[in-house]
């Protein structure tokens, strides 16, 4: 049985079949209750359910890492004990109801504010980067400086209201250059990603399936 799992060829064949089952019906001119379409829908659902399980791996590694701190009595290991307790507490709280009680409290007092901080804190780094990088050191930096400066001015809502002449210029930069770069990036990356997919299907990137980089 283990040969079945160890064979690169068999696993690759399964990967390709699963790929084709999802890929092909999309292009065919067939009704949604056609067996091919039904099969593809079910396979997609199954993949979704299977993926949900991978979270257990993350939790496991979280505990393994935390416990190694505790075992070593590393400095501040008490924080790790707290972290692991929190995971378990959250599960217990959930059994006590979702819309009220401690689950609800933790959600709004701890999780939501901290998640917000993690992203909003980036404004500080952006500001110090901008203040440092937007200096007219050379031609490229000068171009960066000019557009950045104009768009920043335009984005401050008060500027547009007292000095409307900035609006067309700010809109121009945002709607042409920023958009063009996004579009160029999309075109070039799309092909790269498809080529990568093709390489996987051709068995050139078997690490994807958990086969070691060279030997096995």
């Amino acid at each position, binding site marked *: 049985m283990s040969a079945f799992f160890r064979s690169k060829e068999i696993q690759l064949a399964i990967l390709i079949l699963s790929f084709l089952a999802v890929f092909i019906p999309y292009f065919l001119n067939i009704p949604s209750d056609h067996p091919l379409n039904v099969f*593809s829908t079910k396979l997609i659902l199954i993949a979704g359910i299977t*993926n949900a399980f991978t979270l257990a791996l993350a939790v496991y590694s979280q505990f393994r890492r935390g416990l190694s701190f505790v075992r070593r009595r590393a400095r501040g290991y008490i924080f790790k004990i707290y972290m692991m307790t929190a995971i378990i507490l959250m599960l217990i709280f959930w059994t006590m109801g979702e819309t009220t009680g401690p689950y609800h409290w933790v959600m709004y007092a701890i999780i939501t504010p901290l998640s917000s901080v993690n992203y909003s804190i980036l404004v500080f780094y952006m*500001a110090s980067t901008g203040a440092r990088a937007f200096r007219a050191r*050379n031609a490229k930096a000068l171009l960066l400086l000019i557009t*950045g400066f104009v768009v920043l001015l335009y984005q*401050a*809502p*008060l500027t*547009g*209201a007292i000095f409307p002449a900035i609006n067309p210029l700010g809109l121009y930069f945002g709607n042409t250059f920023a958009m063009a770069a996004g579009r160029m990036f999309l075109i070039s990356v799309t092909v790269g990603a498809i080529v990568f997919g093709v390489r996987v299907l051709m068995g050139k990137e078997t690490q994807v399936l958990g086969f070691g980089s060279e030997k096995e």
Partner: protein
Amino acid sequence: MSEKKGLMRFLAEYDRRIIYLLIFVVVIGPLLSPFILPISVSPDTQAYYNVIDKLGPNDIVMVVFDTEFSGFMELQSGILASMRVMIEKGAKMVIAVSHPEATGIPELVLNQLADVISRKQYTYGKDYVYLGYIFPNEAAVAATAQDFHGAVRQDYYGKSIEGTLLDKVKDWSSWSLISDYTTGIQSQALINHYGLRGTPMIVNCIGVMVATQKPYVSSGIYKALLQSMRGGAELEYLIGVPGPGLTAMNSFTLGHYVLIIFIVLGNIGYFGYTRYKQKPTGG
């Protein structure tokens, strides 16, 4: 002379914590005593408003909170303003989320819209349904686009969705509109499995995503794009109901001005000090 050099050197090499402190101050300051300054409405926001303004009681809209909680903070003005319009127009709403943290958001939003909900006698099950976290990954989005009732059986509260307005929903073609509020988690999946098939989509995205999302507007996949909190504030201005967006605009303005001032000072410092001291490093 040496004093002048000292100032120039400071402008070139100050402690970055000074910027941090100033940003903190200019953001919190105006929030402590809010007042509303005029703003200008961009064509993008106008286009967004035109789409939701055309909705009617026969339309079923999928409202997707495609965001972590942090993104919600930025998008809430857009969410509140556009959902207010949808409720006013009597359009049916089906709310779904694509991030575990977002499961708490609909409750907050609906509470803040309580006035219009009771005025329009907008009722759960008949006019709106909340499905919870049904989009954990692209596969899940694709499944709902192909066979909705095969993929979703219960609402967030664990009740069966049979007998609700969802009876009319079969697949991607059943929706009049998808209204996505996004930090980019499942937007691409919604585009792939709904937008490309022809379901109309409008999007309110965080500022970071604007450049990434813009190309989809001009290629026609999105009907309109509302940008960041600024767009939300403009929408509030258009519908005439001031909310979190408009009151935040002063902090927004000042935050931008702080950076602009530092850029100017940094350049003075650069030409007055750095350029003489060291050769420039890379691009």
